[in-house]
């Protein structure tokens, strides 16, 4: 097994840096293509799961099969569920030292900069490679405090009570077709439990890497932040560039209990052959703060609307999202805020950039349930369109069943103004540099919310997207 050198990479990588892949010859296990009861049973068996989980998976498969494809959002007509591998296991098990991870996989993560970041500023890391987590670490002092950070399969084995209490309760398989799909074939993902009052200072990071062609990656993440605790979790994602499609369909369930604070940051940078159809939802209880920071780059189609249910008075929810749609890409992204209790507040800030014929859509819902009086919500979406081939649209939904609420919605669409370009160019910046600077400035209000290392990464990714494309 060897890592392909960059010059032998698949054609059509373009400016995408992470389009390389490793050989799959030595994989521990590869399912056949397609999805049926046998495959689902096989996955459950491979994982040696209890009967209830096997039944949950099979029931979810039925729900998946009975549901039609969504009639809204992006074009999924070319997505063929029978042309996908639903389970691919590259290594025997999860390692606690990078030295024990097979060399080519370790090199891949080196190229992605994960071990280096881990040394510098992370509290813990999970590295998922196709279907399974191949590496995991957690700082010792956090283990002593009772923090759990494992892959989700291990959590089912090692922490069955807490797992079963929450798993599938925030996003049941009935929620939508893709949540049902994930529930049937889920594998990997992160499980985090932060005990009451424990503060994790440095981020926990998970990195999701698709390697195989026609791969379906279905990680399942479950996070419980107990009363008065706080943590920040960051996920990154990349995939090789292939001429055929891959599917990434995750489910992320989060509970933030009374007085807890949790931030979930995503910097995804999928290759252009990935369908990214993800369901993410958090429940925030009394005076808790839940934040989604969502950076969506790459993929063919992303449909993702991180949700926050504000369950008790004082709960706050915030979603900051950036979407960048380039050539042949559609980013259909946004947020959902559901005010279930009085005196709750939410804020959505969405910024999208469309370029080279890309399309970005903001799709968002603010819902105020009956009885949720005195709640506040503020929605701001700004779209920047870089050329006349590109497109942006906004679908804001507001459902209010209460009188005494304050909801604000502002939307703006702009093009890079000629005057801005000229001003910067008259100071010696090339047109490409000037455009990149304007775009970087456009997303700056969000990027400054990121820890410095991720802000640098985000700006670098945006600059890569902007490079060599103007003029």
């Amino acid at each position, binding site marked *: 097994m060897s890592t392909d050198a960059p010059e032998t990479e698949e054609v059509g990588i373009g400016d995408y840096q992470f389009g390389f892949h490793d050989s799959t010859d030595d994989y521990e296990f590869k399912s056949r293509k397609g999805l049926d009861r046998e495959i689902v049973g096989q996955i459950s068996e491979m994982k040696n799961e209890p009967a209830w989980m096997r039944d949950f998976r099979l029931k979810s498969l039925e729900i998946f099969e009975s549901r039609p494809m969504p009639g809204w959002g992006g074009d999924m007509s070319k997505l063929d569920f029978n042309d996908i591998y639903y389970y691919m296991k590259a290594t025997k098990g999860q390692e606690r030292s990078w030295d024990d991870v097979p060399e080519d996989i370790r090199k891949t993560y080196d190229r992605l900069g994960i071990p280096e970041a881990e040394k510098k500023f992370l509290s813990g890391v999970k590295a998922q490679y196709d279907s399974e987590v191949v590496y995991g670490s957690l700082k010792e002092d956090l283990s002593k405090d009772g923090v759990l950070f494992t892959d989700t399969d291990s959590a089912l084995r090692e922490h069955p009570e807490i797992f079963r209490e929450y798993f599938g309760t925030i996003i049941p398989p009935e929620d939508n077709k893709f949540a049902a799909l994930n529930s049937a074939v889920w594998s990997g993902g992160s499980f985090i439990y932060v005990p009451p009052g424990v503060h994790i200072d440095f981020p926990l990071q998970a990195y999701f890497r698709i390697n195989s062609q026609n791969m379906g990656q279905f990680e399942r993440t479950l996070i419980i932040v107990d009363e008065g605790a706080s943590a920040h979790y960051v996920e990154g994602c990349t995939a090789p560039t292939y001429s055929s499609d891959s599917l990434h369909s995750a489910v992320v369930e989060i509970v933030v209990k009374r007085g807890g604070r949790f931030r979930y940051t995503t910097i995804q940078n999928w290759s252009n052959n990935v369908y990214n159809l993800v369901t993410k939802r958090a429940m925030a209880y009394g005076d808790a703060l839940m934040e989604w920071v969502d950076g969506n780059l790459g993929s063919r189609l992303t449909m993702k609307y991180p949700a926050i249910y504000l369950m008790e008075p004082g709960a706050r929810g915030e979603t900051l999202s950036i979407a960048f749609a380039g050539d042949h890409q559609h980013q259909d992204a946004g947020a959902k805020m559901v005010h279930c209790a009085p005196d709750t507040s939410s804020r959505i800030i969405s910024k999208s950039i469309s370029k080279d014929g890309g399309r970005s859509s903001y799709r968002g819902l603010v819902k105020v349930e009956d009885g949720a009086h005195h709640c506040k919500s503020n929605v701001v979406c700004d779209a920047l369109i870089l050329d006349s081939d590109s497109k942006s649209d906004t679908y804001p939904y507001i459902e209010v069943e209460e009188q005494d609420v304050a909801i604000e919605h502002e939307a703006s669409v702009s093009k890079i103004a000629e005057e801005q370009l*000229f001003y910067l160019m008259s100071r010696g910046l090339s047109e490409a540099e000037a455009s990149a600077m304007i775009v970087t400035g456009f997303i700056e209000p969000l990027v400054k919310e990121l820890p410095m290392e991720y802000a640098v990464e985000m700006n670098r990714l945006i600059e890569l997207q902007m490079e060599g494309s103007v003029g």
Partner: protein
Amino acid sequence: MSSLLKITDLHVSVADTPILKGVNMEIRQGEIHALMGPNGSGKSTLAYALSGHPNYSITGGSIEIDGVNITEQEADERARLGLFLAFQYPVVIPGVKVADFIRHAVSNIRDPDRKEGEGLIGMREFRTEIKARMEELGMDLEFARRYLNDGFSGGEKKRMEILQMAMLQPKFAILDETDSGLDSDAVRVVSEGLAKLSGPDMGVLIITHHERLLEFNPPQYTHVMLGGRIVETGDAALAHDLHANGYATVRERHPEAAADNARAEEAAAV
């Protein structure tokens, strides 16, 4: 040898309407030129055309720096050759910090061969320098961290232009009504700032309606523009005379240009 900016028989149109109809001018490093003229005479058009604004198409004539024809060059290439325009209406760039922008600009101008993505000028060196320039211009250091021109007052914007000029050290600077819309304190700061910067290494073209900027920066040459042409050239006394007496006598001496100017003013008023 000092550099020369040479403008020869320059014709410029905006959206197919001819504005400049044969402008000639020569500016050497170390000289200060004043460009005056009534509204609609084409002063700002000349400034934009010299800097390479894409909406100002040069339909005839040439612009040269030391014999190199820059007529076809983009704005950034001209800037790298040492041309600078202090904007009448500086543009707001949200989210871009002043210091980041100027550091980028300085890196490109001082190393004209710098390629995109190559290293910028050293942070420590840059900080020391911008701090010194800001102190000279009486600017709060906090400005370096603000977003470019975002929420700036008129005076702050103009001072920001002068700061950029100080950092970029151009061979030729064009100041397009840098003194307009400012209170007298701000005009003094800007005028003193310019006086400090200009010297044997900078040729300056000051476009102005007012006299105060010229008091601090007395011009060797005063050009009067009317109807898209330079109709008269004199010394500092001409500028003084125009301030005192207006353009009536100039119009009388150049009836054809005056008629062109009147038409341009009418068109602008529509």
